[in-house]
């Protein structure tokens, strides 16, 4: 072992230090990215999901210009009109154009999903890395807290927080994030634990890098892959949860054009005016499906074993 360390030290010092360590950790970065993108493009389902998400983001950003009618104005004479050229998705119980509302609803849903996942990842990922890398008491403490939060089904805690803070879209987002970060902690920790035994970490320590620098520059990037995959799929589930809360009346409140809320508004007239519930629900489904497919595709693309096989 000693001989190896000496050899590593002298080898690393004679070559450009930073580059060597980076290569150890990243293995030729740019080539990897190209590989990932190529693999993604090859799968037709993944390609479709990327396109769908692109369209969705486009719609969300340009909502004010795509929407046909004002979304908050009621027009009682026009209520419950079926889909037509004038109103592609029909109108709801207040005569509002459903197509326009659905288009604006894309904003709330995408923002909700991204916020929830972003917060969860921002909290959970670093915590998991710290827990996995440091071990010992810090690890135990973090994992105990994590277990405690994992014991709650997310919807229950979300309901409670909605109850305490009052129902609104923002509160429901906070509520769901609070329950989700533990998953990322667990994921990151498991990955970190297997990483910290690797030789390049020992080499970094021998170089004199502090724990913080090692965690930041080496562990964090290397644990990114499963986190990204999970986050993408969770975006779909997050949108499902947010719209679920909206449906229950515990998320976005009327007259917000939130998809889940719109589905519940159409519930009393589902027989006669099916379009009020069906279109928003369809959008929820498509968005969630696109994220899930993308996550699936990413998982395949980021899996190091799937892509390269050399004979031995």
């Amino acid at each position, binding site marked *: 072992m000693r001989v190896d360390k000496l050899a590593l030290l002298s080898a690393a010092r004679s070559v450009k230090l930073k580059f060597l360590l980076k290569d150890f950790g990243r293995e030729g970065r740019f080539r990897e990215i190209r*590989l990932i993108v*190529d*693999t993604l493009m090859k799968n037709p389902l993944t390609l479709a999901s990327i396109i769908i998400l692109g369209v969705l983001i486009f719609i969300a950003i340009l909502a004010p210009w795509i929407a046909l009618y004002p979304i908050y104005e009621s027009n009682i004479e026009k209520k419950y009109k079926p889909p037509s050229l004038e109103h592609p998705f029909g109108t709801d119980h207040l005569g509002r154009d459903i197509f326009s509302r659905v288009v604006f609803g894309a904003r709330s849903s995408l923002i909700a999903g991204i916020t929830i996942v972003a917060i969860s990842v921002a909290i959970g990922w670093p915590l998991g890395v710290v827990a996995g890398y440091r071990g010992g008491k810090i690890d135990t403490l973090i994992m105990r807290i994590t277990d405690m939060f994992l014991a709650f089904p997310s919807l229950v805690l979300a309901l409670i927080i909605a109850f305490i803070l009052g129902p609104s879209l923002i509160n429901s987002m906070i509520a769901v994030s609070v329950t989700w970060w533990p998953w990322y902690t667990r994921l990151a920790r498991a990955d970190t634990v297997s990483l910290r035994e690797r030789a390049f970490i020992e080499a970094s320590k021998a170089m004199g890098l502090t724990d913080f620098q090692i965690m930041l520059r080496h562990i964090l990037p290397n644990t990114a892959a499963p986190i990204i995959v999970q986050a993408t799929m969770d975006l779909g589930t997050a949108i499902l949860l947010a719209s679920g809360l909206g449906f229950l009346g515990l998320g976005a409140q009327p007259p917000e054009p939130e998809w889940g809320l719109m589905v519940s508004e159409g519930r009393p007239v589902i027989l006669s005016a099916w379009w009020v519930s069906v279109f928003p629900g369809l959008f929820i489904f498509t968005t969630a499906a696109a994220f899930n497919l993308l996550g699936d595709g990413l998982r395949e693309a980021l899996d190091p074993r799937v*892509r*390269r*096989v*050399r*004979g*031995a």
Partner: protein
Amino acid sequence: MKPLLVVENLKVHFDTYDGVVKALDGVTFDVYEGETFGLVGETGCGKTVTVLSIMRLLPENSRIVSGRIMLRGENLLEKSEDEMAKLRGRKISMIFQDPLASLNPVFTVGEQITRVIMIHQQLSKEKARERAIEAFKLVALPEPEKILKTYPHELSGGMQQRVMIAMALSTDPDLLIADEPTSLLDVTIQAQILKLLQEIKSRKKLTILLITHNMGIVAEYCDRVGVMYAGTIVERGPVKQILKKPYHPYTKGLLAAIPKPESRKRRLHVIEGFIPDLINRPRGCSFHPRCPYAREVCREKEPVAEEVEPGRYVMCHLVEEVMVA
């Protein structure tokens, strides 16, 4: 002596993202009954691919492009998967480099070996258990009954490998393929395991195909050897002769690289260069970029295996020249 196994001009390609990897580019050798044949070469030269081809256990992205593998006159490459499954573990057995990874962690070793025995020989569980104990005794495992109940991770590396050997030999196969069985073990255990194999070979009628990267092991334990480089066998023949008088420059380089304490030289001999890119193989002889004797013809034409002495084959243009002259 009759050849038990004959591999003729085996070519195997792998389809990868970066291109087609031509892992084996015409491998030819034969293994006689009752001998230990060594397949030696650097990591990546194709040793494991060769034996996986014999066992027909190659991964999905592989293609056997041409060649024949004859076991007692039958071409294994033409057999169906079912037929191969009957042969594996019964006529040909294989043991692997990492014994811990090759044993299922959630079953006891007893359960694993008795299942193998029961699959190949229709025996009752008790009879199979008895045979298992016999097999454990064969490989000199102490307290065989106790070991039956242990889990793989509870045994030492040497004992794990003995268990694997016991499993492989429990059905009295004709051929045992050992893929670097000792590379991960301590040096002292290495010697034990290899001596054990020798002993068993002399007691039972066993032929061994031994893969290794260690010329020392070849010298000590093999009768004949094939030196592999970049997917071809560049030299093969009886070990003693090759050690005394190597023909191929690669073999010479390998032998020269073995550190000798009594040598006066200060520097270790090194074969310059790296193993070639198997996707874009060099034209002509695959060794020519690193060969100190390389000439024009080496860069142009691929050499053919020439029988320079009875039973000695070499793939090198220089040798051809010597022969012609």
